């Protein structure tokens, strides 16, 4: 079905990954990852640096060979699909570049010429806000402009599947939001997108489903809402106190399901917020401690990650 890009499609598993493993000498980068992505879905691999996300995406792009496991994208094997496979995909690589002295328009035109199916270069330049920079050399572009160019180049063949490997890493918040807008537009167009990220906001905002990856394994999969609900249906209380407290003591307070310490503050998860807050205040009074700050929020994917691994995403 996927081999003919013009066909209208019914939802199907456009990406299938089973028991994927990859080792680089002594380092086991992927230790048996499995997941699937439906057509038209934005699927995120969320995890810290070194979790195995990039290795996984590069195997799916056909840039690396897995040690074991099976991979299928658009019904094809990325490692043996050759140029026919590459006609169907587009991607933004995590670490890549273009020649310094290539102009923006030249780069789009050059890469466009490699594909059988291609979009209008002018449309891409306009859509990605590159009109004013179309004659500029690649070396003179800002980080955001380079990333917009990379996105434009990922879409020039109207790909069936788009791989975005850390598309906003290292960009300032404003540029990151610009990139989010572009990806959201692609999402509205029902493009199948596999995105890797270590930004919680990115995964929550952009992804229909997320696989949380850590140490080369998928440790949870679901929609962001499902994952957060499965995270015990608790509310997150961020607590700052004047003097150090024992997290084990806080864990025993009423309604508390979990409590962890981070750089001088506590993240308390509670099933019943009012009684937990009362219990915290009473405990602080009893120990002559003072409340320095308190914030209440529903749990984020970061909390899910902490609950599953005991670490923060960017630790």
């Amino acid at each position, binding site marked *: 079905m996927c081999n003919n890009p013009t066909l209208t499609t019914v939802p199907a598993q456009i990406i299938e990954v089973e028991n994927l493993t990859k080792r680089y000498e002594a380092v086991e980068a992927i230790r048996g990852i499995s997941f699937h992505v439906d057509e038209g879905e934005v699927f995120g691999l969320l995890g810290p640096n070194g979790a195995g996300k990039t290795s996984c995406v590069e195997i799916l792009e056909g840039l690396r060979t897995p040690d074991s496991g099976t991979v299928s994208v658009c019904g094809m094997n990325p490692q043996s699909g050759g140029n026919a496979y590459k006609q169907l995909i587009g991607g933004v690589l995590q670490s890549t570049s*273009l*020649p310094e002295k*290539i102009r923006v328009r*030249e780069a789009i035109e*050059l890469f466009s010429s490699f*594909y059988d199916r291609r979009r209008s270069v002018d449309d891409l330049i306009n859509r990605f806000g590159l009109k004013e920079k179309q004659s500029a050399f690649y070396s003179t572009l800002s980080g955001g402009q380079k990333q917009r160019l990379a996105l434009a180049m990922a879409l020039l063949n109207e790909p069936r599947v788009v791989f975005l490997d850390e598309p906003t890493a290292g960009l300032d918040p404003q540029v990151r939001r610009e990139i989010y807008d572009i990806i959201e537009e692609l999402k509205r167009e029902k493009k199948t997108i596999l995105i890797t990220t270590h930004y919680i906001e990115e995964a929550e905002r952009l992804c229909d489903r997320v696989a949380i990856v850590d140490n080369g394994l998928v440790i949870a999969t679901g929609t962001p809402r499902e994952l957060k609900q499965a995270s015990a249906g608790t509310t997150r209380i961020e607590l700052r106190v004047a003097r150090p407290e024992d997290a084990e003591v806080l864990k025993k307070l009423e309604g508390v399901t979990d409590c962890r310490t981070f750089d001088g503050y506590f993240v308390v998860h509670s099933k019943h917020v009012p009684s937990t807050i009362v219990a915290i205040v009473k405990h602080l009074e009893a120990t002559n401690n003072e409340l320095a700050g308190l914030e209440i929020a529903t749990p984020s994917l970061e909390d899910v990650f902490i609950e599953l691994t005991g670490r923060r995403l960017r630790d």
Partner: protein
Amino acid sequence: MKNAIALTINRIQLALRNRLFLFFSLMMPLVFLFLFLGIFSRGVPAAMPPLLAQVVCITVMGNFWGLSVQLVTFREQGILRRFRLAPVGAAAMLGSSIIANYALTLPTIILEFILARLIFHMTNFGNIWGVLLLCSLGVISFASLGLIIASVMNTMQETQIINQLIWFAFLFLSGATFPLVLLSKYVQNAALFLPATYLVDATQRAMNQSVSLTSLVPHVISLVVTAVIAFSLSVKLFRWDATEKATRNAKLWALATVIPFILLGVYEMTYGQLRRDAQVTFQLMEQRTATPAKDSH
């Protein structure tokens, strides 16, 4: 083929925007031209053909550096990874490097001919079509040899070191800068194992004595074999990603490129006439330089 053409145009555009490339590919050959024809020929046009042949050969051999070094830079900077994600094969990538080299070198050689005629009043270009054909084969062979190095070296630093060593051997042992007959017998024997020696000898004889290519069959075969083996191996050994290091096996494969030259060198040492031909070319040049009045009119 469509991809190779698009890449070739792009490589030419990028090369013309690169000042270093322009300096080494255009300015340096012209410096050699003025040095050889202006000084070494003592201003005698009749003595110039073998010297112009040397200049032309140095220009052709420059393709050994050429755009192949740029490929290593591209690999180190992660540029090749982006190309790999597109439907582009190694043959198109490497082929475009050779065609772009050729397209950039040929005008320089023609410019050298024009300047030799207009400034140094050289009239005898010998078998000029033969020379151009030898130059074409030379560009492909030497650019392919450069691609082999680019394929098996892991870093730019390694590439520079190995390229310098091979380049100096080509430049100083082949007769391209010092006539072969002026070198010691041992060095002359060693030169028989270098592809550059065959290019220089064939070009000098075609230009100086108007020798036809049918009389230069071993030379032509050596260049063609180099081009075919080096290009095929560079496609086989090509790496897109700097994180994939060249294996020992790959380096052994690369060494296979020297096999035809070992065979050719042994043949030349046993049955060949290359050293005698180089002697004749040199003596002719010496005679013409010594009797300028007769030859220049």
